[in-house]
Structures are given as C-alpha cells and as structure tokens.
C-alpha cells in the first residue's frame, strides 16, 4: 500500500501500512453542494457512508458560500424536496439563509444514516495497485486513517485527485487563467436578505499565498457594502468557480457540447450557457470565439451530456469526483457547475457508487440500464434525452433553435440578431455551398447591415471573400453591438478584428496598427459610449482584439514579432493603457484583465532577449 500526499504542490509517495480506525462502504470527502447529495444518495441505496467536511458547517458553497438558486442548472432530484422545506417558521428567509439550508440538509443526512465528521481535513490518499483504499485525515484529535471501498472526492477543488498520479492542468490553455472568483456579501434590507455577487478578480486556490492575499483583498473590497443596509456578512467560503482539470476516463470539451458529441454512458444532463465571466475574449480559443464572439451566442443554453467517465480519474480505481471538479476543460466546466446540476450530479454519483460497491465492480462497470432506471426514478435524469439547444425564454419551457437551414433563413442576415444564422453557417455540413448562398445574399443586398452580417458569416467559414467588408467594418468602426442576447452582446468591430486576425493579408497590419498604437484612437467618440468612471469596456474590447489580430497576422505571415514586442513594451510602460481602461485598483477583475493581457502580449511577441 502507498500513501499519496502533496508536499509543496508536488506529489509524494511513501510506503504505508495504515491502521484504519474507521471503515465504510463509501467515504465522501467534502460536505458541499454535491457531496451532501452524493452521501445521502448512496446511504439511501443501503451503503454505509461516512461524510467528511473540512470546516465546522456542512453545505459548502450552497450554504455558507451564500450561493442561492440560479436560473441555470436543471430541475429534478432530491434537492427539490429540500427546497420545499425551507420554511420561515424559525428562520427569517428560505433559501436566502444558510442556516435554513444547513438544518434541512442535516436532517436529510441523519435520516439516511450518513455519519458526518466535521473539522476533518484530508491530508493523504491510500492506494494499492492504482486502487484507492482510504484516506488519511487530520482531525482535532490527531491524524487518523479511514478505509473505504469507494471514495468520492467532493472537495470542489479536487484535493484528493491532486494527490494522485493523474495528469492535471489548470485554466485556459493559452494562459492558465480560470474564471474569476467571487465573494458574496449579504445584507438585510426591507425585511429581505440581499446578496451581492462581486466578481473579485482571479485567484489560484492551489497557491497558499495567492489564495490568502486575494481573499483578504476581496473582503477588503466588500467593505464598501457595510453601510448599504444591515450588513450581515461576507460569505465565509471564498466563491471559487473553477478548479483543476484532471484527465479522466472520459473528458468533456467545449466541442463536445457545441457539436453534441454522442455519449455512450451519460451520468446526467447539465443545463447552462457557456458561462464566461470576464471580458478577455480576445485570448480565448477559436472555437469559443466562434461561438461567443463571432456568433454572439453568449446566452444560448444547451442540455449537456456529462459522461460517466468524466468523474473517474484515468487508470485509477476506487475514487470518483462529484461536484465542479470533473474531467472537463475550462470552457465546458463553466457550463457544468450550476447549483442545481451539482445537487443532481452528487445524487447520481452517490447512487452509482453504491451500485458499484453492492455489485463489487468498478464505477464504470455498473449495469448502465439499471443505473439509468434508478436516476430517472429519482428525477435526476431528463427522460427526454433530446438535446435542447437554443435561446430560452423566461420560463425555459420553449426554445428558439439556433441551428437550421441557412438557405431558408437568409432573412436573419438582415437583422441585428444574426447570431444563429452565423453559427448555422459555421456548422453547416456543406460549407462551400453555404458560402455561395451567403455570398449571393451579400451581392444582392444594398444594405450595410446585411452586407456586414454576410461578411461575418463568410468569415466564420474562412471564406476570404469576407475580407473587403471586414476591413470596411474596422475602418468605419463604431460601438454597434448585435442584440441576440440578454447580456454580453458583442461589438461588430471586435468580431471583424477577430476574423481579420485569422484571414487577413499582410496589408491588414497597417489597417489594424493604428487601433493599438495611434494616440488619437482613444479620442474617438465610440470609446466614450458605455464608459463609466471606473471602466471603459469598448476600448478594452477593441484594444485587445486589435492587439491579438495584429500578433496573429505577424505570425501568419512569418514576420518577426520582436519589433512589435518593443512597440508594445513602450506602449505599456507608463500604464497609459490601463488608465484608459480602468481606474479600479489592483486586484479588481477589470484591472487584472488588462494587466494580465499586457503581460501575455509581451510574452508571446518576444523573440529575443
């Protein structure tokens, strides 16, 4: 047997002969949003379950993190029963109050017979021949070892998985950046709990100093809410949104969601849009940009198949995850972490683990039809497996589809909501044919809105006939945004820049350079629109897209970027760009985004010492 620990973020393996003071069927580590339902679900299936929690309170982000219901995530599962119990006989509010939820969840766990141990911190994992056998735990009384047939890592940040020899990475591929974290502040006004969700910048929860400093900074920023009403508190759990990526037996990527990749064994369906926080889309991957920027589909929702293999670390048995730490890339993870989905994921994982233990098989070897029948009975799995992918209306019962026959819907290119037809062009089976149809539409139109939309549709299909009009959009740049979505609508200028960066000629460099380096550019009226005292979103957007387009063109045409590097270095030297974009202090997400963008640009343009 080996004991796997992490020392200073490095894997450490020693021989071990643990004396398990406690033994169970299923050890669930982390009594958070998913963990509670995982433990309860397994116990209700007859398993002997132990649930560990680092802090003194159960519930995690859902409870002491003050996260209440969100409009994404799908309905179904045991949590619905609990919601109905959030009464106001004792506590003032329903799901707005952690104490309400904490009590209801505690009663649930007690009823199902889960043994709960708080103030228990996992410090090591025992495994033999790549099969996890138990966990080493720090308690108030000292260190103990707990043995289990199956371990569920529901620590939200994959603290057990991190101790194991499985491939891991963190954040977006290009720069390792994750989704911003939040700090929820609660105050009381008009006999209601009011919760402020303050995106507080970027945090690395795996770096002890960064985590501590950024948390303190975020709490300091929350002081501005002290006199807002009756200040209740800043949530005692830092609102981290994204954790590490680990290589699972299955991996879910953005393309799996957007292209609806078939899945042999679906664990459950999540439901969300691709929930990007932050505005640095200029740094995002092409596929994401195609979706979010060029097609302007930020609020389009999808029913997302989450494969069973996504919770199983590759080549390691006896452990699975439940919660927001699954084998999913940064983009897809942003769609699979909503409250309701985490409840249901926990319930599904717990049930499957129980089946595995009962049948003495591995998690992925359980009888899938039997699993499916059980989760459907629990209400955790949509009986309608049909992919729902579209703009949802308020009640979410009807959807406007976003993928259709381009030829039959060309009129949408005449609107300010061309997102769906642009995307439909991109995913059309015969792009050449579609491009011809769109080009004909372009030629036959004398309306600039239509022509520009056609150019964008051609551009997303990599058709260079888009170029003249894309250049025109940039030359005539303005603050025009498409209006497909209820938020995060994209600037047409940024879309054109994004496409020019991919398709442009060498000559387009001289078109784009002034947007970045010309002092007079910032004086344009378009940058006054939408600007507040603290933030200039249009300038940030155009500047970042233009900068990246420039760099891409240099590289595409094999021009040494060192000269560009020197120009950028001089441009950034006196914080002029930061000051144009934001007056927020260091640590604020707006500041961090442009600051990190500058660092990234200098890094990727440097070719000489």
């Amino acid at each position, binding site marked *: 047997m080996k004991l796997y*620990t*992490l*020392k*200073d*973020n*490095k894997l*450490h393996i020693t021989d071990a002969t643990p004396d398990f003071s406690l033994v169970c069927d299923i050890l669930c580590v982390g009594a958070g949003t998913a963990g509670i339902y995982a433990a309860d679900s397994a116990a209700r299936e007859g398993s002997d379950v132990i649930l560990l929690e*680092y*802090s*003194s*309170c*159960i519930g995690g982000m859902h409870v*002491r993190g003050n996260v209440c219901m969100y409009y994404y995530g799908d309905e179904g599962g045991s949590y619905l029963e609990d919601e109905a119990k959030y009464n*106001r*006989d*004792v*506590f*003032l509010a329903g799901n707005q*109050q*952690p*104490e309400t939820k*904490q*009590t209801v969840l*505690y*009663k649930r766990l007690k009823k199902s017979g889960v043994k*709960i141990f*708080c103030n228990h*911190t996992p*410090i090591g994992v025992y495994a033999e021949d790549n099969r996890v056998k138990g966990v080493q735990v*720090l308690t*108030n009384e000292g*260190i103990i070892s707990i043995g289990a047939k199956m371990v569920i890592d529901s620590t939200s940040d994959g603290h057990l998985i*991190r*101790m194991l020899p499985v491939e891991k990475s963190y954040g977006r591929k290009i720069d390792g950046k994750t989704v911003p974290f939040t700090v929820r*502040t609660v105050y*009381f006004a008009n006999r209601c709990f009011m919760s402020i969700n303050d995106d507080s910048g970027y945090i690395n*929860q*795996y*770096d*002890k*100093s960064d*985590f*501590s400093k950024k*948390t*303190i*900074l975020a*709490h*300091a920023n*929350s*002081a501005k*809410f*002290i*006199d807002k009403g*009756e*200040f*209740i*508190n*800043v949530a*005692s759990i*830092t609102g981290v949104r994204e954790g590490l990526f680990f290589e699972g037996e299955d991996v879910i990527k953005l393309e799996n969601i957007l292209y609806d990749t078939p899945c042999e064994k679906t664990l459950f369906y999540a439901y969300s849009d691709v929930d990007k926080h932050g505005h640095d889309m200029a740094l995002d991957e092409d596929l994401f940009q195609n979706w979010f920027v060029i097609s302007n589909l930020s609020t389009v929702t999808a029913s997302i198949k989450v494969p069973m293999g996504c919770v199983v670390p590759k080549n390691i048995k006896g452990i699975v995850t439940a919660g927001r730490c699954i084998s999913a890339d940064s983009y897809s993870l942003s769609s699979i972490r909503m409250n309701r989905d985490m409840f249901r994921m926990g319930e599904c994982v717990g049930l499957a683990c129980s089946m595995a233990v009962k049948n003495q098989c591995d998690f992925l070897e359980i009888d899938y039809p039997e699993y499916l029948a059980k989760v459907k009975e629990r209400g955790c799995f949509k009986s309608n497996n049909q992919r729902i992918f579209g703009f949802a209306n308020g009640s979410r019962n009807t959807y406007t589809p976003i993928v259709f026959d381009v030829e039959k819907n060309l009129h949408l290119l005449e609107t300010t909501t061309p997102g769906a037809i642009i995307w439909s062009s991109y995913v059309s089976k015969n792009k050449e044919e579609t491009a011809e149809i769109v080009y004909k539409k372009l030629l036959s139109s004398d309306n600039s809105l239509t022509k520009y939309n056609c150019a964008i549709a051609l551009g997303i299909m990599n058709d260079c006939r888009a170029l003249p009009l894309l250049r025109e959009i940039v030359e005539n740049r303005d603050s025009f945004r498409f209006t497909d979505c209820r938020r995060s609508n994209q600037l047409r200028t940024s879309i054109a820049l994004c496409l020019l960066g991919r398709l442009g000629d060498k000559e387009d460099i001289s078109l784009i350079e002034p947007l970045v380096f010309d002092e007079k550019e910032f004086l344009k009226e378009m940058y006054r629109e939408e600007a507040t005292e603290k933030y200039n979103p249009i300038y940030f957007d155009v500047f970042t897209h233009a900068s990246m387009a420039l760099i891409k063109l240099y590289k595409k045409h094999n021009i040494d970027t060192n000269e560009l590097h020197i120009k950028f270095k001089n441009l950034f030297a006196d914080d002029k760009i930061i000051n144009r974009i934001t007056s927020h202090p260091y640590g604020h997400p707006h500041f961090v985004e442009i600051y990190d963008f500058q660092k990234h640009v200098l890094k990727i343009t440097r070719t000489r010492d």
Partner: protein
Amino acid sequence: MHLYDSLIIGAGYSSLGYALKNGNSIIIEENQCADPNFYLSLKNFSYTECTPVTDLGKKLNSVFEKYNLFKDGFMCTNAFEPALCEFLINEDVEILLKSRVVNCKNLDDGTFEITVINAEGLNTIYAKDVIDTRPSKNAQKYLTVISMTENIDPAIKILSEVFENSTFEKAFYCDRFAMYLPAGTSDINEMLNNIHDLWLTAKVDAKILYVAPVFATKADKNNVLFPKDYNFSNPIEAFEAGVLFQGGAK
C-alpha cells in the same frame, strides 16, 4: 529555508498586532477569513471603551470608525472582518488562510519545524517561536444566534426558559438581539438542528437572522501566556495587547 521569528496559530487581532509589530512572522488561520473570534463567532456586541495608544492601534481604529462600527454602546461585530481586511491590505503581514497545523516538532537547536496543511498540500515552516492562540480543549464554548423581533423582552423571556443557561444582549441594529448558548456538543450542525427544533416548540415571536458558523470561546484568563482574542471584548484592545506583548509563548 526561511526561519520565521514567530509562527502564530489563529488570525485574531492579538496575533495580527503582534505580527505587525515584530515582523518576520507568519500567521496560520484555518478559516477562509481573518478575525475568527469576533467576526466569525460573533463573540459579543456590547462595546467596551478602548482608546488605542499605539500607532498601529490608532490606524486600525480609524478604519473601524470610518465604517461606524462602534456606535451607541454597541459594536457592529458582523462587519468587522471586511474593515479589518481593508486595514490589512496596506500592511505587511503574512497570513495563510484555510491552513491547519498538522504537526509541530521541536528541533535540537530550539527552533520549531511545523507541518501545515493548506492549498499546496503539506508545507513545512520553520520558526523560532510558535504562538498558539487557539482556545484550549477544555475552554467553554458558546454559539451565538442573532434574532430579530419587535418585542425583544418577551422573546428573551421565552427563549431563556427553553434554552438553558443562555444569555442575551442587544445586538448592533434595532430589533436585534443575540442569544449566547453554551455549546453542549462539538458539532455545530447538530446544535443548529436542536436550536431549530426547540425554537419551533417555543413558539416565540422572533425569527433567527443569523447563526455564527463557528463556536465562540468564553473568556478565561487563567494560564494564558499570550493575549488571546477571546479574553477581550473589544478588538482594538485585543490588537493593542498583541502589539504591546513582549516575548513569545513557548
């Protein structure tokens, strides 16, 4: 291998005061915020006068006064921590949140090798001195429950009969009162559940607004070598005690 002068367990005011005064200190805090004794545990709301005498104490006090956290004989204990953090971001102090001490070993040269579990897994820290500001295992604990009602006195009368040995005081805002319940169990979830069930039977005209997520500790000035927060009823006083403290606690 850096050798700190002090490793301090617990990010309370006295720890912070001491660390800021003496420098080369590191503070280990198991929670995800500073001030576990006043803010997190809602230790008390009544205000005890304290005029700071140290420069650091005056600086901290000015932040608290900026946010009106001492008013009309009460303290807005709920809001202490963000104000404290505003003070801390301008100070040079090393704090590791969400960190717990696993092991503390006394080395031959008299220094300490401390193993800590945190975001990075296990870390080893070396220090000349270890100051443990955590309450002893035998310390008396209590849980703070904040409630609201328009009829405080009748509500308190009913609750004092239902919840044995509980004490009460008015909290910062009007119509709010704090109930301090002796901790009969070490499990806060179990205690909250019991409070809920008893409250229902009490049929009291008051609703619970907030329950502290950690236990508070009753003051106990016996055998205490380092000034610990729970022995003070004013955070500025606790902070100053740390600033003025001479010598470590071995």
